């Protein structure tokens, strides 16, 4: 692991920084409750679609503060949802303010947050949505769903892909033909259509945990086939190697050979393939939630936050900040792509 990171840093700086960015993203998702200034379900109806809170250093009378502050904003024109700042009193941004009780990592109870301002002012870094909820807090909460689904989905697909690809490639013959026909059947449909059809097999109303599991099941069902084919290809070439013959001649069983000798040798390729396929899961979840078929309100995910913009031109043009979650999807996908590319570079024996 250390060796891989070192080589990544030397060969491909971009991939290395992407890796660091991903770690930061995952950490913020883990500590979302603490970092987000407000609970993600907190509604402030009087702040519906209020723009991102501006952070000032200089008051209108020219007085400069080293400590950033915000102004309270109020609705000036309810028809167009125009907000103006009340410049009479600055509200300083506090570090570790106290708020409603919550639990860090689910078990450390605390009432402190990372940043905040005293009410009635609010600190809405990315603005508010229709119900006046803080988009920044919702993005952090949504990151938990969007980022974890990628990892869990890819692990399940991988398990299936390794198992089926390994068996198929190692035993060959009729079994191989049958299993490969099976993968073809999954791959014969365009992914999005298959995803919608599979969604139709589940009830429309599910609890949030059930929806989460459902999305993972759907995405893994679509994803395992291509991985199984890649792994089968590698196993086919590996099983002819001398060391496999050696293992067999000392009496190792087929499954032992597959699990202990063949699959570990495909690891560098499979890790690369996994990294490059995670974006597909993140995008799949986002697309489902975006269309209202995935994560439901009031739960947040990057996809369902964008749903506010669908089919509502008014919102897209006037309250552009509702698109911020899409930007997060974009950079996450890009980071995974860069990292995957970098891994491919260093694992490819041709380039050593």
């Amino acid at each position, binding site marked *: 692991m250390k060796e891989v990171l070192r080589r990544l840093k030397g060969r491909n700086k971009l991939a290395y920084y992407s890796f660091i960015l991903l770690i930061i993203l995952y950490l913020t998702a883990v500590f979302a409750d603490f970092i987000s200034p407000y609970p993600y379900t907190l509604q402030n109806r009087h702040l519906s679609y209020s723009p991102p809170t501006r952070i000032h250093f200089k008051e209108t009378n020219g007085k400069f503060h080293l400590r950033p502050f915000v102004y309270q904003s109020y609705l000036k024109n309810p028809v167009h949802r125009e907000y103006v700042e009340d410049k009479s009193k600055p509200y300083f941004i506090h570090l570790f303010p106290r708020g409603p009780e919550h639990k860090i990592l689910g078990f450390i109870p605390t009432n402190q947050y990372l940043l905040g301002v005293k009410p009635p002012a609010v600190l809405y870094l990315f603005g508010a949505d229709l119900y006046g909820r803080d988009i920044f807090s919702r993005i952090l909460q949504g990151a938990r769903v969007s980022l974890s689904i990628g990892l869990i989905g890819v692990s399940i697909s991988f398990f299936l892909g390794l198992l089926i690809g390994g068996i198929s490639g190692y035993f060959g013959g009729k079994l191989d033909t049958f299993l490969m*026909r099976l993968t*073809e*059947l999954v*791959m*014969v*449909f*365009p*992914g*999005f*259509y*298959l995803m*919608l*059809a*599979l*969604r*139709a*097999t*589940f*009830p*429309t109303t599910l609890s949030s945990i059930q929806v989460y599991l459902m999305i993972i099941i759907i995405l893994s069902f679509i994803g395992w086939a291509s991985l199984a084919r890649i792994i089968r290809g590698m196993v086919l070439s590996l099983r002819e190697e001398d060391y496999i013959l050696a293992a067999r001649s000392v009496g190792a069983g087929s499954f032992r050979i597959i699990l202990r000798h063949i699959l570990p040798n495909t690891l560098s390729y499979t890790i690369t393939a996994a990294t490059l396929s995670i*974006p597909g899961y993140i*995008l799949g979840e*986002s*697309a489902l939630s*975006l*269309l*209202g*078929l995935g994560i439901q309100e009031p739960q947040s995910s990057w996809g369902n936050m*964008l749903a506010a*913009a*669908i*089919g509502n*031109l008014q919102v*897209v*043009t006037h309250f*552009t900040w509702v*698109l911020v979650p*899409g*930007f997060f*999807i*974009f950079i996450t*996908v*890009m980071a995974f*792509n*860069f990292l995957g590319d970098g891994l491919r570079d260093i694992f490819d024996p041709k380039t050593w």
Partner: protein
Amino acid sequence: MWRPDPSILMLRYIYRRLLHLIPLIIGMTFISFLIIQLAPGDYFTRMAMNPEINPATIAQLRQEFALDRPLIVQYFRWVFNICHLNFGVSFTYHIPVIFIIKGRVLNTLVLSVSVMILTWLISVPLGIFAALKENRPPDRILSGLAFVGISIPSFFLALLLLCFSAKSGWFPIGGVTSIGYEELSALGKFGDRIHHLVLPTLVLVICSFGGLFRIMRGNFLENLRAPYVTPARAKGLSEKKVIYKHILRNSINPLITIFGYELSGLLSGVALVEIILSWPGLGRLMLEAVMTQDLYVVMASLLVGGVLLILGNLVADILLAFADPRIRYR
């Protein structure tokens, strides 16, 4: 040595490819049917909740659609009907599915084909250009752009461009034609359609050009260093001829193979963009059908989506056989 006539070889190759499709298509119908059978309830369960509808009417409707028969009977009945292009009746619109789906498929095809053509026209020359300028600023910039294109989610880009075009008013949003379409001249009609096509095409071309560009660039670089290039140069061919006659032809072939793989992603992307930019295509139809549990429409959309993919792959294989004689002899 006797060599068969090339055109016969080609026909034989196409024939074999077609035969290969049969089990795939049978499997496809089976899977489509199975998936939809797994769906909880059907359209009538929802209808049954409506107290204004007589249960006897529902029972009669169920019988009409053969929903009260065993699964296997339903399946064969469905396949038999499909062979006669009868996809059943939409529960929501009360007209045969084929009438709804025909226009939608056409719209999806128009969008996909224009995206495909534009993507190729853009990424192949740019790939060559970048490969010739390897590691110099133009290559760096293009490769960076390609990476952005690969990574940006199509739905996000669609929303961004939607926002842009709503603000600038450059492109119409949604639909295939404007409201006053019928009064336009023939040329005006064509122009109107193209105008509506621009936005969704733009989104999809940006999203799909990156992949093709990177492969083209990679292939070209590989072939640039291939051993056959040296003798070509040594016998005094101009650099232009070396590049366009030798290297280009060799680096395009793998691209055609990739075409088949990319198609699945393209169709998925088209479906999503259709939904966001209100382009009345197959993807949009399927979403509506899933939401209203309109069974026959869902099945038909899934099936037609699969058929589009299979046909695309078939075209790719045939093109490849034309471009690369080695394949025909296999």
